[in-house]
């Protein structure tokens, strides 16, 4: 809900976050075989292989602008001008005749024919941690199993694991964010395994310790890691250690990450681009997301703490946040289009739910999951579509309610990933990429 004080010490998912360890173990036994094989052919480890020439296969990619805290649908995609719910901002016409969005989004209004909006999102959780969980994983938790987050699934399905460029990146300029902070400390990759977790970059853009110590030659650096990896993997296999598996997966990324340190250096991007995206941290990172996608990342999630949770000062905050988002979407979609990348790159802008059609006494809007909106573009999403609608005051969905499952089925389908596929998890209960055999939203899919 509204306010939670910071916990400096340790992670607390106040929902009782799922137990992450269990059951992975059995699944792991499949993965063990390769570890053992590498132990047998240990010598190969010391001859440093030339990096496999990256095959830039034409794969789909995704940028998720994670609007954490939950933006208001009324001040974005589903304005209700002149009503008691509508708030002080007007609605403006868009490039799609008859369609209006908030006056705070004039740039998106001008390219509405390239965007699509779902106005009939209707989901269950209305608390942040649970909402973030469901809207990033696509499904309610079922402890002790941990479903991988959207980025992990897309990276696993579409990413190139041999690429030194991280396939799943979380850009988060603000390390804070209450429940989101707790969520960030949890297990993102779930049963797919830690190697599909995100590489996180934040703060002042730098990834610490990304350069090797000067005292060490490149050869020594690589050799000692090869030896470490051998011993550590052996331990992982012998002990069936899941902690070691995550640990080793993290080390596996070190070399690749070190080689693409320049990709994370925002200073290297053209100043004109930086100016165009806007000065705020979220905008700068959205630009970096584009840069990473251009250079081989598969899924980039951009977050900025939990700024949208405006239980107080709703309009005073949204007047700043929405225009920033408006410009980011406009620039991003324009850039991707200019580079011929839009049809393969999906951009999603959403939070974990919406906000109440009424204002509380503190001039804020509270959490509302019954009827809310989000926007998508590119990457197999048909442009210019508005899915569903809400009643005149925005209290209820009146047409085509969309829940988290149908949303995820649509995202997967558009990206060319089978939503119905069953996970290959021996001895685990049956899990599908999307449960419930739901249908994607056909009208949103490019034919």
């Amino acid at each position: 809900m509204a306010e939670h004080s910071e916990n400096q010490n340790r992670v607390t998912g106040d929902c009782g976050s799922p137990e992450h360890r269990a059951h992975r173990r059995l699944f792991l036994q499949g993965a063990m075989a390769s570890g053992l094989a590498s132990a047998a052919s240990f010598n190969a480890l010391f001859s440093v292989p030339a990096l496999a020439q990256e095959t830039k296969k034409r794969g789909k990619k995704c940028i998720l602008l994670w609007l954490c805290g939950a933006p208001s649908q009324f001040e974005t995609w589903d304005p209700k001008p002149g009503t008691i719910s509508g708030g002080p901002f007007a609605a403006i016409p868009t490039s799609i005749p008859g369609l209006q969005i908030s006056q705070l989004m004039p740039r998106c209004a001008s390219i509405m024919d390239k965007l699509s909006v779902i106005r009939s999102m209707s989901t269950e959780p209305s608390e942040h941690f649970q909402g973030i969980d469901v809207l990033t994983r696509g499904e309610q938790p079922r402890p002790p199993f941990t479903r991988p987050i959207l980025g992990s699934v897309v990276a696993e399905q579409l990413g190139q694991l041999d690429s030194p460029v991280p396939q799943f990146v979380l850009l988060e300029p603000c390390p804070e964010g209450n429940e989101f902070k707790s969520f960030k400390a949890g297990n993102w990759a779930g049963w797919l395994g830690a190697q599909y977790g995100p590489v996180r970059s934040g703060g002042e853009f730098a990834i610490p310790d990304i350069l090797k110590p000067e005292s060490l030659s490149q050869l020594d650096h690589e050799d000692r890691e090869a030896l470490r990896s051998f011993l550590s993997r052996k331990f992982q296999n012998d002990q069936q250690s899941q902690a070691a598996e995550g640990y080793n997966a993290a080390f596996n990324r070190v070399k690749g990450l070190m080689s693409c340190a320049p990709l994370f250096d925002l200073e290297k991007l053209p100043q004109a681009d930086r100016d165009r995206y806007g000065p705020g941290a979220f905008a700068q990172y959205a630009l970096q997301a584009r840069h990473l996608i251009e250079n081989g990342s598969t899924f980039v999630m951009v977050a900025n703490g939990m700024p949208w949770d405006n239980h107080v000062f709703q309009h005073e905050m949204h007047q700043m946040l929405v225009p920033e988002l408006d410009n980011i979407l406009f620039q991003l979609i324009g850039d991707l289009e200019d580079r011929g990348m839009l049809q393969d790159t999906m951009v999603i802008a959403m939070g974990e739910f919406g906000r109440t059609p009424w204002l509380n006494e503190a001039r804020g809007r509270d959490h509302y999951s019954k009827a809310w909106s989000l926007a998508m573009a590119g990457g197999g999403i048909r442009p210019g579509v508005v899915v569903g609608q809400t009643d005149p005051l925005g209290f209820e969905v009146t047409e085509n309610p969309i829940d988290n499952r149908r949303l995820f089925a649509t995202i997967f389908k558009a990206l060319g990933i089978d939503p119905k596929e069953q996970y290959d998890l021996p001895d685990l209960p049956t899990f599908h990429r999307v449960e419930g055999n739901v249908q994607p939203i056909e009208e949103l899919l490019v034919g």
Partner: protein
Amino acid sequence: MQKTITRIHDFKLPTAILGACLLQDHRELIAACLDGIYRVELDTKKHQRIGGHDSYVSSAVYIPEQQTFITAGYDGKLKWFSAQDNSLLREEKVHAFWSWDMALSADQRWLASVTGQYLAGDYKYSPAQETEASVKILDATDGKLVHALRHVPSVQSVAFSHNSQWIAAGNLMGEVRVWDVASGEQVGGFESKDFTSWGIIKSHCYLGGIFAMEFSPDDSELIVCGMGDMRDPMAGNGKQLWQRWNWKESKLVAQTNEKQAGEGLMESLVLHPARDSFLMGGRLRGGDWNAALFDLSSGERIGTIKSGYRITQMLFDNQGRLVVVGGQGQPGKSNEGKFPDFGRVEVYELKT
């Protein structure tokens, strides 16, 4: 000396009231509401909607000499109405963004309205420079622009000095600028860091600022109010805070005695007609009052109100009674499509 403040009269309007003024005989009120402009008979509680803006109506002032009242709204417009027949006399689009606040000079010659949209100005979300003049002074009679003055958005409160010589405006970042009304020259100002929070828990952004201000009786000082620092700007739990500044020397003179303040945004200030005390009101987030009377010389709290709703404006009528307006939270449930009224008007008596 402690005063008891007793409610003697109360009723509701359909939606929350953001500002108000009393008409000639002080038995009628113009209420600036979320859904329009209401003319209200205080004693009979009769009210009628006499017009509106294209957004929330944010303030209202009355010019006795001309028998007109003027409203300002989040549509950036000012509207002049005849107090005789409520007819619309004039309307001016003054700002591209909201009119956050409007004030009338004591000599009834000048109107001032302040605007400004908070937009990201840098990596840490300091506000961007203004794209339109944040403070406008108009001729109260014909609405002609007299001065367009620069400030940093969002400028959220404005007040004229009692001698009508100066005008002050305060913004999101706690900066107050004071100008000479005649020349439009800036003649003073100050910056208080105490009303603004930068998010360190939820996110990085600025929230807060100065929400109301009044000149001291001799005009040498400004009393400003809002809410103290919050670690989490979304918590709304800053101290109920006023400060008195010598605006010529940029010096803080006095402020809320911390022991006497609870938590919540304060957005209304009014001097007592006796000019020995002032009232500050707003929202109760924690503590036991949401409006309180403060002795002007000692700064001590000498009376409190716990209204049970957010107070947005307080006015003294010509009999020394206090008229308080504001609103509760907007109801989330309707009764067959009709929402319960949530605008509030109350009248209080102050007794020693």
